């Protein structure tokens, strides 16, 4: 039941996406910067012929907030609160790459307990980010209700984060060598409760969406792309895994304590929007698995136990691996030794990287952000050529671009 939906077989002439000699029957529609489905302020110069998209050229930079310039004009510690805004839907990942970059340069050791806390928070944040994607993706396809359900569960995660960090979206929780504070008492139990609750919720979502005939019509066979093209364009994350490549930093270069938990990397087979949807839904389940194992294995256990053991004079409870920060540094006057490193993390959208160069002053010499969305967005014109106009929303939604990360 599809009309003229020819699949792009060859790539576009590089970079020149908008052909200037417009045919009489073609119409140039300027989608954005303000549009309900551009997920921020993205401008897409789209040439359509009837409902068929002929050309599309993304124009970015509307949300450029000079994050890289800011890094060079203030101390590392002063810069830290602002990097939540690089990718605000999964702010823990921003912090993780930045903090880890500096830890590697300075040789700061992170206590194991804090690494587990980082792992739990990042996985919770991955679920929150995927939930927002789930809601907005279906909203782009015209279904309004999933958005509200997704936000309901996202709020539960945010309440957990609020207990932990005091903020719901801009956490500023990790510190060089550890974190801001230990978990509140009973927080791990709250995380487990969320896992139990969310496991049923995600079954509900899958029940209403996964086999919905209209949803299948809109996503199956739409935006098919092979893995080689995606890798050549630098696309990573669930978008790449939907095309069948099990590329996951958590498996390949385990950071935190991902080598101490077992989980699977879901991959799709056909590389269409539907597979990307399935991969993300499966990833949320895998995240639940990781959180459960991490809560079970975390050194020191719940903070209440740890405090009690310390009060009772248990020497083992004062172990360095159970401290909030392994080495105490004065953050206000801290001068990082000269060095450079690029740290990448498996963010909900792919490889999120921070290339940090320090020169012995309190400021960073250079701080470059490698946003996953920045690279993922480059593949959109390729996927859209020759597709129908409504497919734009399905495809754009399925590669999960978040504009603050693109523009930084």
């Amino acid at each position, binding site marked *: 039941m599809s009309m003229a939906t020819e699949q792009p077989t060859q790539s576009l002439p590089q970079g020149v996406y908008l052909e200037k000699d417009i045919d009489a029957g073609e119409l140039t529609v300027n989608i954005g910067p303000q549009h309900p489905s551009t997920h921020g302020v993205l401008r897409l110069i789209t040439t359509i012929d009837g409902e068929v998209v002929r050309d599309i050229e993304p124009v970015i930079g509307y949300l450029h907030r000079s994050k890289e310039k800011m890094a060079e004009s203030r101390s590392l510690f002063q810069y830290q609160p602002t990097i939540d805004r690089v990718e605000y839907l999964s702010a823990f990942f921003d912090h993780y790459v930045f903090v880890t970059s500096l830890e590697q340069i300075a040789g700061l050791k992170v206590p194991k307990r804090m690494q587990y806390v980082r792992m739990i928070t990042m996985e919770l944040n991955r679920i929150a980010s995927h939930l927002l994607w789930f809601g907005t993706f279906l909203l782009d396809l015209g279904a309004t209700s999933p958005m509200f359900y997704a936000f309901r569960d996202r709020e539960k995660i945010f309440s957990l984060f609020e207990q932990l960090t005091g903020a719901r979206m801009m956490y500023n929780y990790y510190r060089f060598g550890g974190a801001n504070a230990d978990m509140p008492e009973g927080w791990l139990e709250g995380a487990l409760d969320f896992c139990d609750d969310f496991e049923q919720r995600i079954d509900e979502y899958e029940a209403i969406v996964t086999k919905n005939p209209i949803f299948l019509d809109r996503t199956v066979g739409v935006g098919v792309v092979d893995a080689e093209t995606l890798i050549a364009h630098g696309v990573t994350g669930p978008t790449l895994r939907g095309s069948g490549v099990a590329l996951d930093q958590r498996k390949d270069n385990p950071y935190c304590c991902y080598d101490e938990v077992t989980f699977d990397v879901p991959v799709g087979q056909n590389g269409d929007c539907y597979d990307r949807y399935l991969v993300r839904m499966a990833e949320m389940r895998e995240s639940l698995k990781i959180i459960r194992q991490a809560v079970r294995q975390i050194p020191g256990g719940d903070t209440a136990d740890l405090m009690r053991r310390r009060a009772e004079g248990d020497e083992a409870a004062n172990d360095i691996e159970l401290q909030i920060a392994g080495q105490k540094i004065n953050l206000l006057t801290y001068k990082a030794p000269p060095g450079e490193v690029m740290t990448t993390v498996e963010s909900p959208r792919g490889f999120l990287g921070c*290339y940090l160069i320090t020169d012995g002053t309190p400021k960073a010499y*250079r701080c470059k952000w490698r946003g996953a969305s920045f690279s993922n967005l480059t593949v959109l014109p390729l996927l859209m050529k020759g597709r129908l106009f409504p497919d734009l929303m399905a495809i754009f939604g399925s590669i999960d671009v978040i504009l603050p990360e693109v523009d930084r």
Partner: protein
Amino acid sequence: MSDEPKENDKPKPSDGAEKPAKKAEAAAPPPPELGVCGKLLEGAGLKPVALPADAAGTETVQVDGGQLKQACERLRDDAQFDLLLSVSGVDNKTTLTAVYHLYSTKTKAKLVVKANGDKLPSVVSVWPGADWHEREAYDLFGIQFDGHPNLKRILMPDDWVGHPLRKDYTVDDPRLVWNER
């Protein structure tokens, strides 16, 4: 406050090929040797220069600007570096440097390639994903990438003057309101 310098002097972890900072200052470090990829490039008739590995121990090579494209092709075809993570511009006050972070989805290896100069060949034909990254480096640093199909500003407005992330860049544009004070 008092223990701060001590903390700074703490040695780095011994996992990488890194030398402790103290020793590096005292005695000149031995020149780094070419790693696997560096030797591969050397074998292909190119002249890579080994640089000290970064803090995570990733191999770093410097390539002459004129040989950058051949080097990248070799690295993609022979060393399976199929994923270009990013192209970052860096202003070293004397020269501009483009830093290419490569990743292999097959061998999971990482590599850093550096090339100096404000005029470099574009690697868009090697990795199509370099398109926007090179535009960004051009926009923020003014590095000219020869052979780039569409080299124009990407983050800053099209009529912006100067390249903001250069170290000699000053914000004295009369059009900017915050300069009126």
